[in-house]
C-alpha cells in the first residue's frame, strides 16, 4: 500500500511542481515504485517539468469519467521505469473532478505503488480540496517570505479542519538563501518554525541549477555532472526523511555551494540569459 503525500502551499509559485517532480524522481531512483499525480487541472505543469508532455494519451479527467482505467492513463517515465505520472487535462476545469473521484482513483493506485505524490494547484478552492482528498500526509511548501508563510498558515489550518493530525503535516522551506539570512535580510528557519509551529522536513536552498533543469524538462536529481551538489543532497535527504530515516536538517553553512562552483554556475547562467535577450 502506497503512502500518499500531497504537496500544497496556498500561494502559487513557491515550487510545488518542481519539488513534486524532484522528490518523486529521487524517491524512484532509490528503487521505490512512485506515482505522481498532477491535480492542477486546466493549468498542468508537472508533465512539462518531467519532460513527458508529448506522451500523454489519457488524463485524470478521462479516469474520473470512467472512460479509461487509472493504469491506462498513467504515463511511464522514459528512463525510470518505476516512475509514473497521472497527467491533468489542460482543457478541462477543476470542477469536473470531485474529491470523491480523487479518493477512488488514489485508492486504486495505492495497490501498485509505494509512494504517491500529488501536485496541488495554488489556491484553497475546489482544486485544493480535490488534491488533498486522497492524501495521507501533507507537505506544505513555503518560501521565506511573509505572504507565502501566511498562506501556508491558512493551508495548515484548512488541513487541520479536514482532519489531518499535526504529525501528518510537514513543512518544506524552499528558495532559502543562506547568505541573506546571515546578513539578517531574510527570515531564518527559527522564525518560520515559530510562525507555523509544524515540523520542518526539509530546507531547499535557492538554486539556479533547478531553473535550468526545469526548463530542460529533466528533474535536477536526474541530470548528470553535478550529483555532488548541495541540491542533490538536500532532495535526497528529504526523501530519506519521508521514508522514515532520521536525517538531521542541515546547518546554514551546509546549504551553500562551494564558492568556485557557484561562480561557474553563475557565468553559465549569465551567458544563457543574455543569449535569450
Amino acid at each position: 500500500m502506497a503512502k500518499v503525500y500531497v504537496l500544497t502551499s496556498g500561494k502559487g509559485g513557491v515550487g510545488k511542481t518542481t519539488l513534486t517532480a524532484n522528490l518523486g524522481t529521487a524517491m524512484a531512483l532509490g528503487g521505490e515504485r512512485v506515482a505522481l499525480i498532477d491535480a492542477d487541472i486546466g493549468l498542468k505543469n508537472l508533465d512539462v517539468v518531467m519532460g513527458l508532455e508529448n506522451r500523454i494519451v489519457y488524463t485524470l479527467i478521462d479516469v474520473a469519467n470512467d472512460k479509461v482505467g487509472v493504469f491506462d492513463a498513467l504515463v511511464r517515465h522514459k528512463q525510470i521505469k518505476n516512475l509514473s505520472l497521472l497527467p491533468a487535462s489542460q482543457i478541462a476545469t477543476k470542477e469536473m473532478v470531485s474529491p470523491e473521484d480523487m479518493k477512488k482513483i488514489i485508492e486504486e493506485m495505492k495497490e501498485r505503488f509505494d509512494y504517491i505524490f500529488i501536485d496541488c494547484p495554488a489556491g484553497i478552492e475546489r482544486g485544493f480540496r480535490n488534491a488533498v482528498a486522497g492524501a495521507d500526509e501533507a507537505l506544505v511548501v513555503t518560501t521565506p517570505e511573509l505572504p507565502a508563510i501566511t498562506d501556508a498558515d491558512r493551508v495548515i489550518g484548512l488541513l487541520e479542519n479536514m482532519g489531518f493530525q499535526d504529525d501528518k503535516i510537514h513543512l518544506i522551506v524552499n528558495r532559502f538563501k543562506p547568505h541573506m539570512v546571515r546578513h539578517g535580510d531574510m527570515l531564518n528557519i527559527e522564525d518560520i518554525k515559530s510562525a507555523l509551529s509544524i515540523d520542518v522536513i526539509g530546507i531547499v536552498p535557492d538554486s539556479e541549477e533547478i531553473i535550468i533543469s526545469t526548463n530542460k524538462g529533466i528533474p535536477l536529481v536526474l541530470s548528470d555532472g553535478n550529483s555532488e551538489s548541495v541540491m542533490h543532497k538536500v532532495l535526497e535527504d528529504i526523501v530519506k526523511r519521508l521514508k522514515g530515516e532520521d536525517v538531521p536538517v542541515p546547518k546554514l553553512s551546509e546549504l551553500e555551494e562551494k564558492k568556485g562552483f557557484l561562480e561557474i554556475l553563475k557565468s553559465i547562467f549569465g551567458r544563457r540569459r543574455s543569449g535569450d535577450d
Partner: protein
Amino acid sequence: MMGSVDLRMTKRGVVLFIESYDELPQLFADINNKISQLEGFFSTGDKLSIMMKDREKYSKDITDIVSFVEEKGFKVGEILVGEMNRKTPNRMSVKQKLNVVESETKKRLNPTKVIKKNIRSGQAVVHDGDVIIMGNLNSGGEIISAGNVVILGEAKGVIRAGVKGEEDAIIYAVVMNPELVQIAKHVAHLTEISENSVAHVRGGKIIFEKYDNLNFSNGRG
C-alpha cells in the same frame, strides 16, 4: 409644607429623604429650597445621607443627585433605597451600590472557552463569553468574543472583545501585535508591538497598556 424632599435627623446623621418628583430640575430646586430654610445649620463638608423611595428613578438619576449634593458642599455618606418608615433599609456605600447595579445589568455570559492550540490564518473563534487562547493567534486568524480575550502567546490576527457592547471588556496578549483590535464599538490599530500588554477602553477609545502598569484589583482598568 411637605414637599417632595425632607431633611431629617436620624441615628445615622442627617438624611435627605426624596419622596417623589417628576423631573430632576424640580427636585434640585426643592433640595435647594430645603437647605436654604436651614441656613446656618450646615457647614461645608458635612455628611449627608440620601434616601430614595422610587427604585426606578433611583437607578436612573442617583449619579446626578449625588453630584448635585456634592456640589452643594456636602459629603455624601450612605445611599439608601426604600420606604421612609422602613426601620432598616438596605445600607450600602455609593461605590458598593454602583458596583451592584453594574453587575446586575451585566449580561450573563457563557462559560469561558479555553483553546489549547494556535489559531491559524482563516480560522475563527466565535464565543458568547470570555476566551482564553493557550497558543498564538496567527495573522489572518480572528477571535470574536462577547467577553474578555486572553492570549497566552503572540497575537497577530484580529481580536474583537465585548462585541455585544461590553465597554469594560479587555484584551490581554503576551505579545500584542494584532492586525485590528475591537472592544465594544471601538476599533484600533496598534502602531508598534508591545509585550505583556492589555487593550482596554478609556475615554471612549482603546488604549494599550503594559499589564504591570494596571491594577485591576482596585477596580481600575
